[in-house]
Structures are given as C-alpha cells and as structure tokens.
C-alpha cells in the first residue's frame, strides 16, 4: 500500500525557509503571493495490513516532530 505523509509546520511556527521562498517568488515578479510554507512529503510503501494506528505512530515517533510539525496521512486509494 502506498502512503503519503505530508508534514507541515504548525500554524504560528515561524517558517524562515518559506519566507525566503516567498521573497524569491516576489523577486521573480510573481505578485499576489500571500504566504509560503515549506513542508515535506514522505512516500511510504507499506504492507497492506498496516493499521492506521501504526501509521500514526510512525508519524508521531519519527516522521514528524510534534513540537513544531503537523502531519496528514494520505492512503493509496486517495492518492
């Protein structure tokens, strides 16, 4: 089963990388960009019987740092 984990910074956590990308987009002449947040996409290929609980635990224990990041799990049928 293919699983995508989208990791993003929590709202309110300053994203210096996103800010730099935002400035660069403006420098390229793209107007109207309100905000940029840079996250991470992790693609997993896991056994079909992997439980949602196990996926959650993977995210909480390693893939995301719960102090600063949120995650969203997207499973194959939704991909």
């Amino acid at each position: 089963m293919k699983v995508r984990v989208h990791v993003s910074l929590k709202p309110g956590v300053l994203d210096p990388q996103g800010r730099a990308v935002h400035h660069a987009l403006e420098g390229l002449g793209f107007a109207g960009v309100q905000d940029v947040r840079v996250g991470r996409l992790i693609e997993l290929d896991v056994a079909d019987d992997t439980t949602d609980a196990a996926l959650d635990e993977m995210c909480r224990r390693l893939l995301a740092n719960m102090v600063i990041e949120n995650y969203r799990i997207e499973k194959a049928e939704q991909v």
Partner: protein
Amino acid sequence: MAFRAAVITFPGSNCDRDMAVALEKVAGTAPLRVWHGDAALPDRLDLIALPGGFSYGDYLRSGAMAAQSPVMRAVVEAAGRGVPVLGVCNGFQVLTEAGLLPGALMRNAGQTFICRTVPLVVENAQSLFTAGYAAGQQIRIPVAHHDGNYFADADTLDRLEGEGRVAFRYVDTCNGSQRDIAGVLNMAGNVLGMMPHPERAVEDDHGGTDGRALFEAAVRQLA
C-alpha cells in the same frame, strides 16, 4: 576516583574529538569513546557527552536519526537514572529529538549558517554544569550552526523560565530562538543541551577560555 566520561560518536559527528580533548584537559583522564551502534554504555559513567556535527547528514531533521540510534536508548535510560548528559549543538538537537529536553531546534531565522563567538548570559548558575559561573555573568562562547533556532510553545517556555531551566541566553539575538534561549536543562537538572560550543573555548589558543568553567564544574562535582 578518576573521572569517567563517555563521548558518543554518530556518523557525521565532527566535534567529538574536540569534546574529548576538552574533557581530558579538564579531568586529566581521557573519556571513553562510544559508537552510535553500541547498544550498551560503559558502566559507572560520570558524564555522557553528545558532540556537535551533522549526525546522519541531518536527514529528516537535525538529530532525528541519531535520536533513534541504538546507543540513545541507553543514554535515555542512563539520563533517567540521573547520569549527567551534556549535548552541544547537534548533541542538543539529538537530546530534544530523543525527548530528553523539551522544544525543538529549527532553521536559523536568518536562514544563514552562523559561525562566530557570541556573548551569553548565564541564567542559572546553580546547575551541575553551570555552577562555575555567577548568575548574570556574561561569557563568550563560539556558535556554529544552521539549526539553532530554539522553539517551544509559550506554556513550555514559561515553565522553563519559572523552573530556572534556561541555563544560557544569547545577549544579542542570534538565530531567532524564542526568548533568546541558548541552553536548557531538564527537570532533574542532570541533562543540559546548548547550541554554543564550550569545548571550543577551553584553551588560550581558542581565543577564549570561558567554556572551561563548565567542564571544571562538572568534573569537580562528579569526580
């Protein structure tokens, strides 16, 4: 008894030798060297040091992979028993990722790698590691990091301050850290994580020796 310290080396550590030299200079005995894949630590350790560097190439997040290495299970267990643990720079990142210290170290607010000697103020001069300083004393210690921007939520920051667990603060805003925090202690006071490198300030040739008192205090109290 001779001071018995261990310096842990992860793949990508690059300040492990500096840490070992500083400990040997101050303690008079060379620390044991421990590899990240070792499942057990040497027994009867007085101190465990996690050095700076770029463990596992900073894959995923700085310190995230190292925090999962076999030796870290033993370090977490030892810290729980009260064995003193010092994490510097990447070592601090590893300690937060391993859950031994609260908060996280994010990319510097200015996006740039910062490599210079900065003034710090000693906030808590009563801990194992900081007893060689006076509260409010300013010291100069080098920093060299890209991910030193300390973040924790406001409640956690208030709790850290209320409990005297902010060990060091940057005098001038350095990397965007919340409340200019440069180093924090765990609740029991036996674990210190700090971004500045005290091991790079122990000899005159380093350009300053303000880091020496940190090691001296630990050795004096633990040996």
